[in-house]
């Protein structure tokens, strides 16, 4: 089915989110919508899906003008959407989720689950998905949940499938599998709209690429164009995709971790006897597929985990058995991987967030009283220094974009006297411009002679920053390799294999 959007304009008050956007998706093509956060990609797709009503413009399917009052109309017309945040009910089975919204019923409203199960099996078989219709959704890995979403859309005979940033929640392997699925769908004649800001994925599957910036179509890109070309089209200026960094000048070992183990609330050993050192003035990247113990490892360093054994010393002083306050006071800066959940208080102002982890000590507090004047001066300085784009220091952090939120976290953590800096997934969900900024700051921190740990699931990021790379798999460190180790070897190590003769030294 051919989909055409003509002159779509969507305004929110004074803000024009979509400004006369024209887009044509031919039948059986994968069309990428590329753009930074806030460029208007998802707004456009929500207009298409009937969630928003456009002020101007029209939607055509096979040259017939459509009017969608809600998602039901769009679904009926053959448009399916796989949301970034899955629209599934965790305690329902796969079949129940798939039938949700168009349940077949028998006598006295009895649900016809058998037909839903058959439907799931049939679609699974067609595309080689391995999905059990009776599995509870909450028990499934994220990648499989996404397939349930796809099955849900296909079970309603979707001819146009919209994927809204589908890879944001996936591991590299799951991402690869999704790419294969998208190609299969395409081969079966489905048109696909693929929203993303990850250049590598675009290059892999896209037939055509439309770049959107500030609510306007700024052009089409060739899938064969270089990353730098696409990035500059997206951002509107040329960007450094890899930070300039000089070779590390490592000093003495500052953080020494030996035989660290963490047991989680479900009695699982999530970090299993891990040992490593981080030297002053070097970046140790901890790579690995999400969920292999990296999160728990950083939390253990910060004193956020309850059941920890082993030894951690920072400049000779033990960090084990200390609470978070004591660890922070020992000079550990921490960028949590989920900045909105763990790093910031959305309802607080920028200024308040900047003092969040020094809420009971000087210089922000004297005699139990907040030093608001000092805080205001401090916040003004940091807004300038870290290029936080906001109306002022009293803007609520929840209103900032992801990139600016992360800058607030960085500004807070990097303005303390640090002896160790731990950044977990520091650029997750950020746009290209912000990634550049964050990476530059991390390298500057290293160059100031501070030991840095960067935890990342993105191999691009690991390669850009690391002086040494520790790869984690199932709670253990598979090996520690130099920063210039080839991707293929890292990939193998992330799957738990230790390549022979690769110069692995713990």
């Amino acid at each position: 089915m051919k989909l055409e959007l003509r002159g779509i304009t969507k305004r929110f008050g004074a803000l024009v989110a979509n400004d006369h956007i024209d887009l044509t998706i031919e039948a059986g093509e994968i069309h990428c919508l590329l753009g930074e956060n806030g460029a208007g990609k998802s707004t456009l797709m929500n207009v298409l899906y009937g969630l928003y009503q456009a002020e101007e413009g029209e939607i055509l399917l096979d040259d017939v003008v459509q009017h969608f009052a809600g998602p039901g109309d769009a679904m009926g017309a053959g448009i399916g959407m796989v949301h970034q945040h899955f629209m599934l009910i965790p305690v329902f089975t796969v079949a129940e989720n798939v039938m949700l919204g168009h349940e077949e019923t028998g006598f006295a409203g009895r649900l016809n689950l058998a037909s839903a199960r058959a439907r799931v099996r049939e679609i699974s078989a067609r595309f080689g998905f391995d999905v059990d219709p009776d599995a509870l959704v909450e028990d499934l890995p994220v990648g499989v949940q996404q397939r349930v979403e796809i099955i849900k859309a296909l079970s309603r005979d979707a001819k146009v499938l919209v994927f809204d940033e589908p890879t944001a929640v996936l591991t590299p392997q799951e991402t690869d599998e999704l790419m294969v699925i998208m190609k299969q769908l395409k081969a079966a004649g489905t048109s696909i709209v693929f929203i993303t800001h990850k250049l590598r994925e675009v290059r892999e599957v896209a037939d055509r690429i439309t770049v959107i910036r500030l609510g306007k179509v700024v052009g089409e890109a060739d899938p064969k164009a270089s990353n730098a070309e696409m990035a500059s089209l997206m951002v509107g200026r040329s960007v450094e995709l890899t930070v300039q960094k000089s070779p590390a000048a490592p000093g003495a070992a500052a953080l020494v971790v030996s035989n660290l183990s963490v047991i989680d609330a479900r009695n699982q050993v999530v970090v299993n006897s891990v040992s490593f050192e981080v030297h002053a003035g070097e970046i140790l990247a901890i790579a690995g597929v999400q969920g292999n113990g990296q999160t728990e490892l950083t939390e253990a360093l910060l004193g956020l985990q309850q059941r920890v054994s082993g030894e951690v010393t920072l400049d000779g002083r033990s960090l084990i058995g200390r609470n978070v306050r004591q660890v922070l006071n020992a000079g550990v800066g921490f960028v949590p991987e989920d900045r909105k959940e763990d790093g910031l208080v959305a309802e607080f102002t920028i200024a308040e967030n900047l003092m969040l982890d020094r809420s009971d000590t000087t210089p922000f507090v004297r005699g139990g009283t907040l030093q608001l004047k000092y805080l205001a001066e401090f916040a003004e300085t940091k807004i300038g220094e870290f290029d936080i784009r906001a109306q002022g220091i009293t803007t609520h952090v929840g209103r900032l974009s992801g990139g600016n939120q992360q800058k607030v976290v960085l500004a807070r953590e990097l303005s303390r006297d640090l002896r160790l800096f731990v950044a977990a997934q520091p650029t997750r969900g950020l746009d290209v411009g912000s990634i550049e900024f964050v990476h530059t700051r991390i390298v500057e921190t290293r160059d100031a002679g501070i030991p840095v740990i960067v935890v990342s699931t993105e191999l691009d990021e690991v390669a850009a920053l690391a002086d040494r790379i520790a790869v984690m798999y199932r709670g253990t460190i598979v090996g520690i390799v130099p920063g210039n180790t080839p991707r293929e070897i890292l990939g193998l190590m992330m799957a738990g294999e230790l390549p022979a003769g690769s110069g692995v030294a713990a």
Partner: protein
Amino acid sequence: MSDSQIPSRGPLPEPLEVSQIPPSELAPEVKPEEESRSSALLREITTSNALLSVLAVVLALVAGAILIAFTDEDVQASAGYFFSRPSDLLTAAWEAVSGAYSSLFQGAIYNFRADNFQAGIRPLTETLTFATPLIAAGLGVALSFRVGLFNIGARGQMLVASAAAGYVGFAWELPTGIHLIVAVLAGILAGALWGGIVGLLKARTGAHEVIVTIMLNYIAFYLISFMLRTPGLLQAPGSNNPKSPAMLPTAVLPDLLGPRYNLHLGFLVVLVATVYVWYLLNRSSLGFQFRAVGENPNAARVAGIKVKNMYLYAMLLAGGLAGLAGVNQVLGTVTTGFSSGIDAGIGFDAITVALLGGSTPWGVFFAGILFGAFKAGGFAMQAGQGIPIDIIVVVQSLIVLFIAAPPLVRSVFHLPAPGTKRRSGRGKSGKSGTGTSAKPTKSAKAVNQ
């Protein structure tokens, strides 16, 4: 991150030059569909803004007027011949409503029929007297709301405080001045301990404060009922009534404006308490940590704030403030001895007052005075116009109902949906709610971008 979060409703709160700021700066990263559940509801209810509170009061008074008109006998009589002389009905309705509300005003603020100013102003002092315990208990409830605790145990905390302050007040013979101070402190301390139990259980075991406070209300009520019926404990000697002896004169809060008015020193104490809570929440390190825990306990924990301690401290303070309300009752309002009904529904009205005041200290102060005015004026309305005092309770309840449903009030007055507050509120609550989006694994949650 997707960009569907560009403000989904209404205009932006402040004019922004789009050309200067890219949309990404304007777009909070939240999904409308993640709006969820109890935490969002609690936030919505507890942080309603002042305008909405005022409008809710106005709406409730209008609804009250309709009720008064319908229940008035003259109105009912004239309705029988409405089509022959419709003006009779309107006149009767107007007289009923205006009579009711003017007697409410005269009973609560200033009595124009009084001979002189001293007598005329008496209703206002009555209002403040009624408001005093409401404000104190309301401050306690509001404080716990701000830490994210739905404390509905003000009643139990008041009762325990009343018993402690009352016991010191009638049983201990201490010098003038010292006696009052000791009695007041005993009450506050008892309330703090009763609230502290809640904080301790919450911090140590994760017990839910709603269940714990409800049960502690029962425990306090029946424990004190028992003690009031048991000679040698709280019961007045030589009496069979479940009632304590009268307070000794040295333990009674002195009158502020002389013996012709009931207003007592407790009002000033409560005024000081309001200033203190304002300082605590807005200017102190402890209050900063309270608010951080209330808004996002996860981020507070990662920032080194001891969340469990904050729950304990907040409940100690909240209990102490509710205790102050109990103290005001036994040592100020009802000094002739107390029964187990000493809290007079103030413990629950305090929740209403805290909600109406948007959980801010000065909001609670004025909401408390409004409710004090309803109480003082309600009696006058009943006596003067024969309007059942229940109508006042209906009006009070309607106020809360309207506050709990801000979209209703907004649509009645054609107000735009507030951009900032709602959206940022969503951002936070969206993450805690897993209602529609499946995020069962750590990895899925972590990449919730």
